[in-house]
């Protein structure tokens, strides 16, 4: 990403010739990589071992693939490793499929991880605020259960078992964030939403680490505890400074804390049961089953369908429906919601503040989602699944967004959902394409250049 920022060249090497690069990151990687570049340019590497491309040209190809397929997931090796509590134990070479599990792997060890997610909606007080005592109870139970699974699990290979027993990683996350935010009367576009993400993830992280410390007192710390950052009395948020130092650039993440971490720090130094504690998984299926919104994700729209292995299901923003019912507007606007595909903006009957409060995922500024993620990542020792929802005409419009994700210290980005321009003719709505032409045709015509349209000889009907 530095090279993209600097509009420099990106050297691609065949790992057969530069095997040690695979195990490096940060400053050590930078130096070694520079060494290989010089060796390559001096002709000391076989020609088939390397290739030079413009960093921005390759980046543009990656962005084009994202726009056309939703993939690949950009994962950042420096933040993943520098912020790992197991960084002395091993190098993180890749994340898992959902980009939230960040654990070291090598030829003898295959990382695996058990995950669980707290349903925030089940931990709210009457005032809609988080019931921190209830949350603490759930987290303690979840951490004990996750730790039990490590011993009870069936492992696909000895290398997976070995890795899991030595590091004893677990990944506690959450679901229901979007529903909670909506219940509070907020939208994810509000800075307050990031503040809430920060606080709730801090609370979960604090309780999870405390629970793992308690488990260590009962069952002993994980075998490699002495070599971990935990043993030095370090906590996940301490590594923000490491990343900042390694990059030589400020990490634009708020550093505020609410809990008494110093007391916990002293306890952590005595031992923690699990080498990794938190990861925020996408929960795209279990949240559906639990009846809330997944992970830290926004509602895709206020009315939409979700296609899963088990079929296609209608989903809606339940807080919006409740709000509209209370206002006596629901029956009046429900058909319009189908027509607008869950977008409130064109529905004039709904008061403006309500429309603003319930954006679709594509109406949330990507920067706001990045801010929420960065604030959560502050507390999370592994990673966070972060989908992006983008309205984009040309791939290069995304260049800044992904650079920003990296600058803010995210470890990865997950799928890019791209708003399709065209919508097939609706089946259940009264449409008359002759009377009102489909929006995408009008938009596509609008994108034609003036020069494509105007006939210099004045034969064009529009000019006559």
């Amino acid at each position, binding site marked *: 990403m530095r090279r993209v920022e600097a509009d420099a060249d990106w050297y691609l090497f065949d790992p057969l010739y530069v095997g040690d690069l695979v195990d490096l990151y940060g400053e050590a990687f930078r130096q070694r990589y520079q060494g290989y570049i010089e060796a390559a340019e001096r002709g000391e590497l076989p020609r088939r071992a390397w290739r030079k491309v413009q960093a921005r040209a390759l980046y*543009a190809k990656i962005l*084009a693939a994202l*726009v*056309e*397929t*939703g993939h690949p997931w950009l994962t950042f090796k420096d933040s993943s490793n520098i912020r790992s509590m197991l960084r002395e134990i091993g190098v993180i070479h890749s994340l898992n*499929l959902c980009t939230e599990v960040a654990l070291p792997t090598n030829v003898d060890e295959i990382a695996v991880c058990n995950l669980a997610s707290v349903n925030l909606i089940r931990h709210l007080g009457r005032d809609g605020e988080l019931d921190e005592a209830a949350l603490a109870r759930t987290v303690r139970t979840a951490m004990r259960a996750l730790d039990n699974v490590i011993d009870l699990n069936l492992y696909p290979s000895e290398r997976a078992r070995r890795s899991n027993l030595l590091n004893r990683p677990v990944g506690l996350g959450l679901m229901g964030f979007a529903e909670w935010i909506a219940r509070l009367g907020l939208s994810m576009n509000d800075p307050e939403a990031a503040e809430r993400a920060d606080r709730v993830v801090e609370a979960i992280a604090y309780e999870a680490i405390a629970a793992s410390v308690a488990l260590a007192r009962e069952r002993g710390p994980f075998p490699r505890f002495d070599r971990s950052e935990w043993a030095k009395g370090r906590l996940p948020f301490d590594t923000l400074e490491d990343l900042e130092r390694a990059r030589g650039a400020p990490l634009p993440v708020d550093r505020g804390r609410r809990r008494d971490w110093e007391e916990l720090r002293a306890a952590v130094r005595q031992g923690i049961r699990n080498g990794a504690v938190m990861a925020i998984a996408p929960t795209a*299926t279990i949240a559906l089953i639990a009846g809330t919104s997944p992970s830290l994700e926004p509602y*895709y*729209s206020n*009315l*939409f*369908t*979700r*296609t*899963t*292995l*088990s*079929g*296609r*299901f*209608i*989903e809606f923003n339940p807080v919006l429906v409740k709000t509209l019912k209370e206002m006596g507007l629901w029956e009046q606007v429900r058909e319009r919601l*189908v027509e607008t*595909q*869950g977008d409130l903006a064109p529905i004039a009957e709904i008061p403006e503040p309500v429309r603003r409060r319930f954006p679709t995922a594509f109406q949330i500024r990507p920067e706001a989602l990045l801010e929420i993620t960065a604030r959560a990542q502050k507390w999370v020792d592994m990673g966070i699944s972060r989908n992006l929802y983008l309205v984009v*005409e*040309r*791939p*290069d419009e995304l*260049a800044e967004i992904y650079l920003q994700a990296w600058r803010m210290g995210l470890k990865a980005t997950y*799928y890019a959902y*791209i708003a*399709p*321009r*065209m919508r*097939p*003719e*609706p*089946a*259940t*709505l*009264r*449409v*008359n*394409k*002759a*009377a009102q032409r489909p929006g995408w*045709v009008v938009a*596509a*015509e609008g994108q*034609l250049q003036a*020069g*494509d*349209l105007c*006939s*210099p*000889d004045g*034969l*064009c009907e529009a000019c006559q």
Partner: protein
Amino acid sequence: MRTAYGLIGGDPVEPARLFPLRYPWAYAHVQQAKRNTWFPEEIPLHDDVRDWHERLSDEERQAVEQMLGFFNPMESLVTSNLLMALYPYLTAPEVRLYLARQAWEEANHVMAFETYIKTLPVDRERVFRALEDHPAAAAKADFQRRLADEILHHRPDLNTLEGRGRFLRNLVGFFVVLEGIFFYSGFAFALSFRRRNLLRGLCTLIDWVLKDESLHLSFGLHLILAFLQEHPEVRTPELGATLRAMILEAVALEEAYNRALLPRPLLGLSAEALNRYVRYIADRRLEELGLGPHFHEANPFRWLAAEIDLPEQVNFFEAPNVNYEVGRPRTWG
């Protein structure tokens, strides 16, 4: 400089001079069609194979075979009609560009249905005999064939009112009746399987075909309205009555077809309900042609909102995602 500037009447083999555009809507359709490009190989069919052999009843299998047996030859007929009946007359270059693109899409649909038939496998002899075995399907095919032959076997003179009227009948018959009524009825039938989580691959294929057909229909309607605008003399009460009668005839054919397709209701779908949907859609087409509704039918298939109308979020590990568009500019800054 473009010399010919009507939809018809240009030199049919003159090299295309696209710009400046005279029909920006046609070019916009070409651009969108490009962005909708898909290939049948992208669709996983393993669940369909299992469903076909283990979960579908005999009646359901037969109904699907009959549907494939109608779709497949009709996609070919549309291609022939586009290239042989319409292309020689429609000389506006941006319109021709779309016809060529649409012909590719129809060919892609033929390949997609072939892939499907081969993969399951469906008894292909029976599929290709569908028009012989099912008189109601044959009647629909004959209806389309007649419209194509009206142009192919008796070349109309578009300088005459009669010729223009005949040409317009073909446009309405293919773009509005076949693509806008017959196919839409077939889509609703196919998508009813997804409600029961059956034949997911086929339904993904239909999602994509439906996007294409939606575009063909929209293009066709733009074309018909532009043609009427350029040739207002065609717009006679007689022609209106002819077009209306044609659509009503097509509805009758479709209703008979659906009764034969579903002699007994399949789970969640009866011929009676499907025919109400056909009449609902036919009203929409009549209104779009400015002819006014005939049936005043309400849509019986509210569930199609979930299948077609609402935005779809796909859990990527679990199903293919048809919501991406390709072919965008690759510039930097």
